[in-house]
């Protein structure tokens, strides 16, 4: 494993007066896939939002690639090489599929050049052929699963060092859901992109992860390698359901 690319220290966050994160500590090394598990409302989404600057943390620090980014707004953090596939997808509903993808690469336009990006978009189309078929359709009229593919494709186009994925398999057919997780692994293997993954499908997620954190009501309840987590009895009963019980 390489150097630490993301380091979260004593992070707290609140919505108004309600505190939802109580001192989170978390580290991700370059090239790792790390899963973030936890029940509904545990604070996974909030944590991701704090990391990328969509939500501003109350206390604590976030370090990314050696720089502190704690209260830097998302649009800047993204340009430093972090991509975030947010909860509920957030695609540009009235823009075409292709424009959605272009926007993913928009902040690299100057350095990379149009040709390179066209090629990259083509790679995304190869991975998700349905998107090529629908490239003129408005994003908002895609089916739920198609939208999810678009959101992931769009994020990949920013060539991130660190990719945050918030429930990428939500709403995907089993076949695709599995494929997405494989894709996550491929992305890491091909490009060395580091991934921080939030998933409800704990088994699937752990299968592709190196390490994992389990969040419970805003605190880290457990951390360890994927193997350790899978075999933890508390995790088994709470998150893995009957399949492993």
């Amino acid at each position, binding site marked *: 494993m390489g150097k630490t690319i993301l380091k979260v220290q004593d992070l707290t966050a609140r*919505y108004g007066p*309600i505190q939802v994160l109580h001192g989170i500590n978390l580290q991700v090394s370059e090239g790792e896939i790390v899963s973030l598990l936890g*029940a*509904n*409302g545990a604070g996974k*989404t909030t944590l991701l939002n704090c990391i990328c600057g969509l939500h501003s943390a109350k206390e604590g620090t976030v370090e990314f690639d050696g720089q502190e980014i704690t209260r830097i707004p998302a649009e800047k953090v993204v340009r430093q090489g972090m991509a975030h596939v947010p*909860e*509920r997808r957030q695609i540009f509903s009235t823009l075409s599929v292709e424009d959605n993808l272009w926007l993913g690469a928009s902040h690299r336009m100057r350095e990379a050049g149009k040709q390179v990006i066209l090629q990259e978009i083509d790679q995304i189309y190869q991975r998700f052929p*349905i998107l090529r078929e*629908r490239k003129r*359709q408005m994003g908002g*009229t*895609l*089916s*739920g*699963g*198609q939208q*999810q*593919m678009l959101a992931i494709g769009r994020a990949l186009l920013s060539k991130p060092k660190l990719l945050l994925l918030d*429930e990428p398999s*939500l*709403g*995907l*057919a*089993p*076949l*695709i*859901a*599995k494929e997405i997780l494989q894709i996550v692994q491929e992305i890491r293997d091909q490009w060395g992109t580091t991934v921080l993954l939030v998933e*409800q499908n*704990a088994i699937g997620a752990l299968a592709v992860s190196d390490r994992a954190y389990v969040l419970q009501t805003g605190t880290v309840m457990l951390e360890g390698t994927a193997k350790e987590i899978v075999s933890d009895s508390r995790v088994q009963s*709470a*998150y*893995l*359901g*009957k*399949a492993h019980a």
Partner: protein
Amino acid sequence: MDRLLHVNTISKSFGGVQAVNNVEFHVHAGEIVALIGPNGAGKSTVLNMVSGVFPPSSGEIRFDNRFMSTVRGHQYAAAGISRTFQNLQVFDDMTVLENVMVGFHSRTRSGLFGCGLGSGRSRREEKFMREQSYRLLKQVGIAELAEKTAGNLPYGKLRLLEIARAMAVEPKLLLLDEPAAGLNHTETAELSLLFKRIQAAGTAILLVEHDMDMVMNVADRIVVLDQGEKIAEGIPEEIQQNPKVIAAYLGQEEVAV
């Protein structure tokens, strides 16, 4: 058993996209039918047509011995159909309880002037709605959140809230679009139990869901769509073995489980 819902060769196209193509199936009273298929197969579109969001381009839908083509959107609730949404449509500035109370709209009558003047009926209905809504919240297990503003709930709880709100209509048929999305296994298992209870009380369910544990667990029958067409129909055991379904949707491993 009665045929509660009969979907008779309906199709829908959006511009050039043939989203649903001659799909036919039915749901009996008190039955749970699952509608599955790959992303973009047309499941939500079918659900939208059955719930009156838009009409089919061709074909017809019969519910409770009525042709639904002449029924207007807001009359579906009174007719006995209610639904939840894949992309949540919660009234997020109302409290959780109030959200459910809206569900009682079709079962109450007091009008603008009755409510404005505080008529006896409006007050009786208000009390009825409050009590019943609270009961429904208990049933789905979020009664303790009753007075919270709905918008502040986490995703999973919102799904439960939508179910409670849909139940308030006292539907004969409940349409659920991916109710388990975003829930973990434990929560999904609880939800399955809830559906069984709803079914036991006599409500039929048409369920769109990608979580095969849930589908196999609760569905009496399964209809499989692919690219807008029905490719299979049967009881869970049959569907799990159906090679077409495996190829298009489930994938090999799932069968092994």
